[in-house]
């Protein structure tokens, strides 16, 4: 299955940059031809252009990003993206943000879906950030999570893990 693993986030903002940092690590690994690793933090409108050009089209996408989901410390969650578009005014607001420079994973997915280039199967791998101000390194807690992030991204990309077969992490980390 043609798959893209995508990092999304600003550079040099400590844990908020976990998406691009994870992508750099994943690029050093070997991957089958049908899996592409890319940092999609360059603006949703431009990403629309590039995904529209991709041949063959991507069928699966794994987004790695920082997201505040209310956990107290460093934490990791993943879920299948439900791909339900908000109302048109909300979508337009996301387009405006996208066009004026906001880099945000949810904006990216909404904009990609609106313009018909979102892959059929999308997973969001979200890391609860601890440190979000300027910094080129992850906090120690989030850095410790990074191997799990990479392993889950690989498992999702290779079809070893999915919403239909949520295997506990430890079963394939070894």
């Amino acid at each position: 299955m043609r798959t893209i693993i995508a990092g999304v986030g600003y550079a040099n903002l400590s844990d908020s940059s976990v998406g691009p940092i994870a992508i750099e690590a994943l690029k050093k690994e070997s991957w089958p031809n049908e899996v592409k690793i890319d940092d999609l933090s360059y603006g949703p409108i431009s990403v629309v252009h590039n995904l529209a050009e991709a041949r063959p089209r991507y069928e699966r996408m794994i987004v790695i990003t920082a997201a505040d989901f209310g956990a107290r410390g460093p934490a990791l969650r993943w879920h299948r993206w439900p791909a339900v578009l908000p109302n048109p005014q909300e979508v337009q607001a996301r387009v405006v943000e996208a066009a004026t420079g906001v880099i945000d994973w949810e904006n990216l997915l909404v904009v990609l879906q609106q313009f018909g280039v979102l892959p059929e199967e999308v997973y969001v791998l979200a890391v609860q950030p601890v440190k979000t101000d300027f910094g080129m390194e992850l906090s120690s807690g989030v850095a410790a999570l990074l191997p799990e992030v990479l392993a889950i991204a690989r498992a999702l990309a290779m079809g070893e893990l999915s919403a239909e077969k949520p295997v506990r992490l430890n079963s394939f980390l070894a």
Partner: protein
Amino acid sequence: MCFKNLPIEFDESGKMTLRDDAVRAFGLSDRPHNPGPKPLSDAQIKTLLAKNGYIRDIDFDPVTRVAGALAFHAVADLKERKVLTSNSMATLFRGYEVIMVGRDPRDAIFITSRACGVCGGVHSVASCLAIEMAFGLVPPPLGVIARNLLLSMEFEYDHPLHLFLLAGPDYSRMIVEQTNPEVWEKAKSYRAPGRPWHGYETVGAIMEDLNPLSGKLYVEALNMTRVAREAYVVLGGKYPHPQTIVPGGVSTTISLQTFNEFYVRLQKFFDYSKKVIAIWDDLTEFFYAANPDYKRVGSRPMHMIDPGIWDDPESYDSTYTNCDTWGERRWAMPGAIVEGKLVTTRLTALNTGIEEFIDRSYYEPWAGTRFPKDPLGNPLSPYHPWNKETKPKPTGQNWKEKYSWACTPRWDRQTTEAGCYARLWNTAAAQKTRPNPFIESTGSSLKMMLPKSVLPEREVEWKVPEVWNAFERNRARAYCVAFNAAVSMNDWLKGLDLLKQGKTEVATPFEVPKKGRQLGVGFWGAGRGWLTHHLELRDGHVANYQIITPSTINASPRDPWDNPGAYEEAVLNTPLLESFKDKKQFKGVDILRAIRSFDPCMPCTTHIYAGDRVISREINTCACGADDEHEH
């Protein structure tokens, strides 16, 4: 004599001198002339709020989801339908000036590019120009041409995006039918004179296709931004944050093939600009006819500045000594417009007249004595960028004291604005355009010849407007789509000629000076207008770096004399023409049109407070409620 407020005069040779000693000359006690509106005091506002139920706080506030950077606060009288006071706030400290200190100057190309998520390439070039001036480095002609062509394609991305994806929806059926049904009724039967070029019978049909997400004009613009990006990448290799912009030129390889691939994309903008101009001409004239008060939406004095762009490869030598000469050879003329009149085209005068104040900004003052004069001996203010230091000092928000992370740039101590339209205006008024087949400056207009493509050849003419407001900003931006295409055609032909002559060099080698002190300034432009990078090098490293962006100029808070910034002033002058029976229906579309007409390059998602009513977006978003979520 271009200065009315700064005590600087010119001798016969054009050299500038102070009329007074420096301390007195650059003191802040004298209030400069500013014909703009004066806001009410806090006490007056409080009195009105207490006794009048129609006075409302209106906040256009960033939802600081990740990088919210602009917020806008206004107090409006919904009964009298006017804005009483307004404050523009930059809510984000970017700090590139601090990051740059102590670094190798070449880092500036890549680091300052990140100052903008939309148009990083312009920052890369501005930093290159500053470095070239500091190093005494001159790019080969094809390197200059390549930079010019790349810049045009950045703008061919920016302008359609703004006209149809950002500002366009404010003029769409979806919005106008809700906010002004009487205007929509008129639009349905209002004949569109530009039909031969855009194909629409009525303005109502145009509005229908301006609808966000689904409108044909909206979708078409999205596709045109792709064409512009492709053209950029054909020459520049990558966008955003291009890696091929280097001091001394570009690091890309240019051949006849790349030039032809570029042209395939460029020629699409010939027809597109014919259409875009007709659409915005018709929209503007329709709104004026529907209600002449629309001429006051976003209005402010005709003050604007621009350092010019698109260098002449035969003239540009990067030096400050000759910058007045090579500046006037640019396709877009440097200049300052004051009260609608062009008062200078000299880059040295533009540079000398620029100051940055921090009286309303979260910064500490600085001594400002390092450079009393520029390299030519012209006087410099302590508030000039070469003298400025960036000393952030966050404090609480207070409308009468400090309320923004943006500084307050002023030229000749007046509130000016930046925009692509300043390029049109300066170039039209100056009548100094180099001989060429596509652009003609008449003194009161700019004529542009758009070659035949699918549509026939068309000459378009942007005329210096009689009024200045939100509609004229958008109309001028539409003409800038044509200006970019016409300039590109000139540059493309020049580039072809250079290739034919075998002059294929695109960069000049250089070494970073290891000793001494050097100054540089990159005079350039973003899609939204004025962009300068001021640089001081000491022993091979950056000692000071100051960036003035167009959105800083436009979004600036009040100055030391309490004169509002350009956004603030434009909103103060905006009548509330929206139809609403009670305050719950009020959407603030006229205020939004005023702000958006500047093409603010800051994430400006909005939530609006109107008394007991709040429209807002979630700040932190994630799909944590999804059923099939997994934790580790």
